[in-house]
C-alpha cells in the first residue's frame, strides 16, 4: 500500500507550519521525520492518519482519498502510534495490546486464531510476554511505550505512522524497535514514517522529511539530507558527524 499527499498545508490557528507538501510513502520505505519542537510533525502525522483535517491538500491511499475509507477500513490499512495517550487504561497489558485487533474483529464475542497469533507475536516482539497478565497501570513509562508499540504491531497495518516511537525506551529496546521497523518495511513490505529527535537513528532511515516550521520543508534520501550544515541550521546548534554511509553518527557540539 502507498500513502500519497500533495498540496498539503499544515496550520495551527493562523500559523502555517508547512506549505504545499508533496510526499509519497511507498512499500518498503522507512521515513524519518525531523524538525524542531512545534514545527508541525505531530499535526502532519495526524493529518496523514485522517485524525485532523489539513488546512489544504489531499491525502490518498493507493489513489483513493482518505475520506472514502470507513474508519474501520482505514484502521486495517493505516496505524498511528500517538505521542501521548491522555486516558488511563485499567485492564491488563494483554487486553490493551489486543485492542489493536479492533479493526480486524469479525465477531462480537471472542477472537479468532489469527488475532491470538498476532497478539502473541506482538507481545513477543516487544518482550512483553512476562508482563502480559499484569495491569497496564502498573507498567513503567518505558514498558508502557513498548505496550503501545505492541498494540500497533498487533494491528499490523501496511502503513505505519509513529510519533516518537523511541521515547522512554532504554537503549536495547530503541535498537530492537528500529530493527523491527526495518524488518517490517524491508521484508514485509510495509511503509513507515517515524518522528525522531535522534539523528543517528535518522541515519538508519531510507528517506528523510524535514519540517522547518515556517512553511518550508525538505524531503529526500537520508544521504542527501543528513548534512551537518543543514542540520545545524535546522536545530540552531553545532553538529558534528562521525563515520559515513550507513555508519554515520551525529553528535551535537557541546
Amino acid at each position, binding site marked *: 500500500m502507498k500513502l500519497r499527499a500533495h498540496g498539503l498545508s499544515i496550520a495551527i490557528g493562523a500559523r502555517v507550519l508547512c506549505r504545499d507538501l508533496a510526499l509519497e510513502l511507498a512499500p518498503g520505505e522507512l521515513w524519518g521525520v525531523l524538525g524542531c519542537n512545534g514545527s508541525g510533525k505531530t499535526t502532519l502525522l495526524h493529518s496523514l*492518519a*485522517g*485524525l485532523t483535517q489539513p488546512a489544504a491538500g489531499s491525502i490518498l491511499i493507493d489513489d483513493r482519498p482518505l475520506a472514502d475509507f*470507513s*474508519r*474501520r*477500513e*482505514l*484502521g*486495517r490499512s493505516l*496505524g*498511528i502510534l*500517538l505521542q501521548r*495517550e*491522555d*486516558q488511563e*487504561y*485499567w*485492564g*491488563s497489558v494483554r*487486553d490493551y495490546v489486543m*485492542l*489493536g485487533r*479492533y*479493526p480486524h*474483529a469479525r465477531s*462480537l*464475542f471472542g477472537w479468532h486464531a489469527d488475532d491470538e497469533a498476532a497478539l502473541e507475536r506482538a507481545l513477543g516482539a516487544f518482550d512483553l510476554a512476562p508482563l502480559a497478565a499484569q495491569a497496564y497501570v502498573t507498567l513503567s513509562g518505558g514498558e508502557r511505550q513498548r505496550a503501545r508499540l505492541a498494540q500497533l504491531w498487533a*494491528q499490523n497495518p501496511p502503513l505505519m505512522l509513529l510519533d516518537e516511537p523511541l521515547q522512554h525506551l532504554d537503549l536495547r529496546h530503541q535498537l530492537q524497535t528500529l530493527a523491527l521497523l526495518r524488518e517490517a518495511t524491508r521484508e514485509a513490505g510495509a511503509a513507515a514514517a517515524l518522528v525522531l529527535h535522534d539523528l543517528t537513528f535518522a541515519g538508519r532511515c531510507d528517506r528523510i522529511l524535514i519540517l522547518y516550521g515556517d512553511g518550508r520543508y525538505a524531503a529526500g534520501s537520508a544521504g542527501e539530507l543528513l548534512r551537518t550544515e543543514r542540520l545545524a541550521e535546522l536545530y540552531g546548534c553545532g553538529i558534528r558527524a562521525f563515520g559515513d554511509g550507513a555508519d554515520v553518527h551525529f553528535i551535537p557540539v557541546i
Partner: protein
Amino acid sequence: MSRAPLIVLLALIAAGSVFIALLFGSLSLTTGQVFDTLVRPVPGVVDDVIWQLRLPRVLAAFACGGLLATSGVLLQVLLRNPLADPYILGISGGAALGALGAVLLGIGVAGSNVAALAGALGAVGIVFALSFRAGDWNLHRLLLTGVVLSAGFTALISLLLTVAPQAQLRGMLFWLMGDLSHADASGTAWLVLVLVVAVFTAWAGSLNALALGALKARALGVAVGSLQAALYFGAALATVAAVLLGGSIGFVGIMVPHALRLAGINDHRWLLPASALVGGSFVTLADTFARTVWAPQQLPVGVFTALLGVPALLFLLSRRP
C-alpha cells in the same frame, strides 16, 4: 478472559434477590409457599399477593435498577468522567419538573407520567441541540450544558415545592427521592433494558477502544462521532424509562459501575450485563427494605440505595491498594 461464569453467578444472585423480595411483605409467607405459587399458581390470597402485588413491584424495581446502572456505564464512557451518572445531563430534572408540575395542576397519575416523559424528552433535546452543532460534538460543552440545565431545573423544582399546598408536598418529595410504590406496569422498561444492554454489549469492542480517548479510538478504527451520539441517546432512553418508573432513584447509576470496575471488570462485554444484573438486584433489595422496615409505612427507595450503597462503595475504595 471470559467472565461468563461471573455473569451466571450474578444472574443467580439476581434471581435470589427477586425471590427474597417476593418473600417479604405485610403478609408473611414461607419459602415453600412462594415457590409453589410461582411454579403452580392456585387462585387464593397468596396467589393474589404474589402475582398481583409483589411481582409487578419487584419487576419494576429490578428494571429500574438495571436501567440506571446501564445508563451510568454508558455515560461514564461517553463523558470520560467518573462522576457521570444518569442524572448529570438534566434528564431527571426535566422529568421531575414535568411530573411535579402535573401533580400541582391536579392532573392524575397518567397525566403526570405523560408530563414527566415530555419534560425528560425536552431536556434530552435541549442538551443535544445546544452541544451538537454542525458536526462538531464537544463533550465538555455537553457535560456543562447538562449540569447547567440540571441546576436550572433544580431551581424551578424548588419553586414548585415552595408554592405547593401541604397535602401534595409529601408525594412530590417522594417522587424526587425515588419511589417505587406506584410502579406497576414495567413492560416497556424491560423492553428498553434488554434492548439497550444487548445493543451496547454487541458494541462493547468500540466502547473498550473509546475508553482510551476519542483520538486513540479513531486511530484504532472506531467511528467515534456516531458511537458518541448512540451512547447519548441510549443512555437518555434508559434514564427516561427508569425515571418514569421510579422517579429519581439516586446512587445506583454511579455506584454499580464503579463497584464492578473496582472489582476488576473493565471489559464492556462483561461490564454492561454485569451492571444491569447488579443494579437490578441492588434496587430490588433496597426496595424490599423500603417497604418492610417501617411497615405499613413505605419509605422512598432512594433513601435505601444510598444507605446501602455508601458503605459498600467506601469499603471497595479503601480496599484498593
